[in-house]
């Protein structure tokens, strides 16, 4: 990322933000304390049900907090939801484009909805179509758009009124890889131009690629919050070796855990995953250890720790469980 223009001005601030949905005793969000600074791309990472969408919902006025407080652009979200909405842009998980309007009209009427005049709305709508490479679809029905294009149009619509924060809820869920990359580029560019972004995701690559800071959530609680690099450092390991083998895998795990530098091992499908801090000639030693317990090694792969590793070490579960 080029020159992340992160400032020290808080744009989002929550304190002890909590949500218990009526009729359930599940605490969807549990005492969340967050500060997001102007210029950041901030990620809420966690599996389904972690409370990411509920958090975004509270910050965008759609979900009423049960306790705690939240401020966006200095405005109390609970006390002044209507004012808050002037300063946020929201892209939800589902396609919410106006099906009875054309692509261009979807943008134009958004401008009018946010109090812009006809002339300004017209100009901005056309500019944004240009920027998001949708100009040739201007007159088309939104039904004609592919998933990726519809998502681009929703982002264009959400930034139309120049919000202080752009909220993206699982923006690339269900998109093909190419559209996902295109959307990542758009987010990076918007951010380079100064747009603060809060995104929720359960894709660790997305959080790693895009976010200045990531909050890892599970069961409504904040487990860790830092830059992706620091989060990965916090695991204390620098290499992950995955050994796929046949034979006694428990025995293999015990043998690998005894290696110099081994931090922990865990069972994976048809093999063992070894977390290592430091350690010379690692692969040779891994294979020797495996052969020492009579395991037939079929595949060995080496990777750096990822946010997935962080999540596993924090919760003992995989992100996509």
């Amino acid at each position, binding site marked *: 990322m080029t020159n992340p223009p992160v400032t020290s001005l808080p*744009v989002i601030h929550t304190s002890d933000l909590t949500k218990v*949905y*009526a009729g359930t005793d599940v605490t969807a969000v549990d005492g969340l304390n967050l500060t997001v600074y*102007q210029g950041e791309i901030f990620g809420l990472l966690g599996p389904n049900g972690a409370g990411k969408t509920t958090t975004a*919902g509270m910050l*965008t*006025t*759609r*979900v*009423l907090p049960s306790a705690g407080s939240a401020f966006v*652009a*200095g405005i109390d979200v609970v006390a*002044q939801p*209507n*004012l808050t*909405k*002037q*300063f*946020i842009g*929201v892209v*939800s998980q*589902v*396609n*919410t*484009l*106006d*099906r*009875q*309007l054309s692509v261009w*009209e979807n943008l134009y*009427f958004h401008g*009018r*909805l*946010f*109090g812009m005049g006809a002339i300004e709305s017209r100009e*901005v709508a056309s*500019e*944004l179509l240009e*920027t998001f490479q949708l100009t040739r679809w201007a007159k088309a029905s939104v039904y004609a758009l592919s998933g990726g294009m519809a998502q681009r149009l929703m982002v264009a*619509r959400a*930034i139309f009124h*120049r*919000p*202080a924060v*752009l909220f993206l809820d699982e923006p690339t869920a269900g998109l093909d890889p190419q559209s996902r990359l295109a959307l990542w580029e*758009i987010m990076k*560019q*918007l951010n380079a*131009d*100064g*747009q*603060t972004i809060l995104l929720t995701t359960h894709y660790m690559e997305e959080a790693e690629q895009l976010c200045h800071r990531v909050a890892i959530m599970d069961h409504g609680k904040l487990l860790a919050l830092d830059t992706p690099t620091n989060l990965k450092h916090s695991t204390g390991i620098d290499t992950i070796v995955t050994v796929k083998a046949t034979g006694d895998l428990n025995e293999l795990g015990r043998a690998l855990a005894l290696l110099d530098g081994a931090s922990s091992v865990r069972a994976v499908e048809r093999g063992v995953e070894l977390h290592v801090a430091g350690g010379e000639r690692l692969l040779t030693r891994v294979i020797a250890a495996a052969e020492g317990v009579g395991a037939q090694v079929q595949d060995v792969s080496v990777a750096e720790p990822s946010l997935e590793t962080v999540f596993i070490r924090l919760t003992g579960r995989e992100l996509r469980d």
Partner: protein
Amino acid sequence: MKPSPISLSSQRSTWSAGRSALVALLLRDFTVIKKDIKLFFLRTVIQPFLLCFVFLYVFPKIGQSVGGGGGSPGAAESDFATVLVAGVVGISVMFQGLQSVALQMSQEFGFTREIEDRVQAPCPIWLVALEKVVSGALQGMLSALIVLPIAALVHANGVHAAIHIHWLVMLTLVPLAALAMGSLGLVIGTSFEPRNIGLMFGFIVLPITFLGGTYYQWNRLAPVQIGGWHWLQTIVLVNPLLYVNEGMRAAFTDVAHIHLYLIYPVLLVFFAGFLSLGLRNFRRRVLS
């Protein structure tokens, strides 16, 4: 791409933001209608046209009696025509309210999820719902305007609806009726799951239409009684369409109708009741 400087000094008062949002939402609705103006026109006139065609053209032609008999030939049909024309305008207003508010809203909640974006508009949530009612009411008034001449013109020779417009009543009652029916649309649109919206027609629209005084005056129901109790006349009093249709009779004809002293307050109560119930439903479905 657009930079996004935060300047909170650019904030607009909630009042002015709400006003421009309301205007924009109405503009959006009328843009959609303008796109499909032929469809709007057809949708509006088809039912009134068919009703008048069958009852006021075909029936007299084939000698089927609908006027309750008596009087000179043609007179009974003309009396019925007078009663029916007002009723036809009344149900048009109701159908417009249901179509433009209930169907639209149940789609936006269910299939298209558009409502989720609409409520991010910088205005109170209730304003988004109220706009639908206002928009539905405007469409209802527009359809009254389209339907009245059609209803007055489609008939066999010798059948004449005696139209006599009472301007003051028309200019006040048509908007009130349209608002009440738009609010009914809001209640229905926010109470039914989209997949159940078909049920609405069977359980709500049909009974309301057939027992709403479209084809007959309320006072003519008196003979339907059990042991001296005018049960039908009593039961239909809960039907909001009855007051709309009787009100249209007061606005467009000189035939007998429920007293205006009753029609105005009852429609106002229906309007207020439906609107507050509809707004409450809407809020519940949008916020969690």
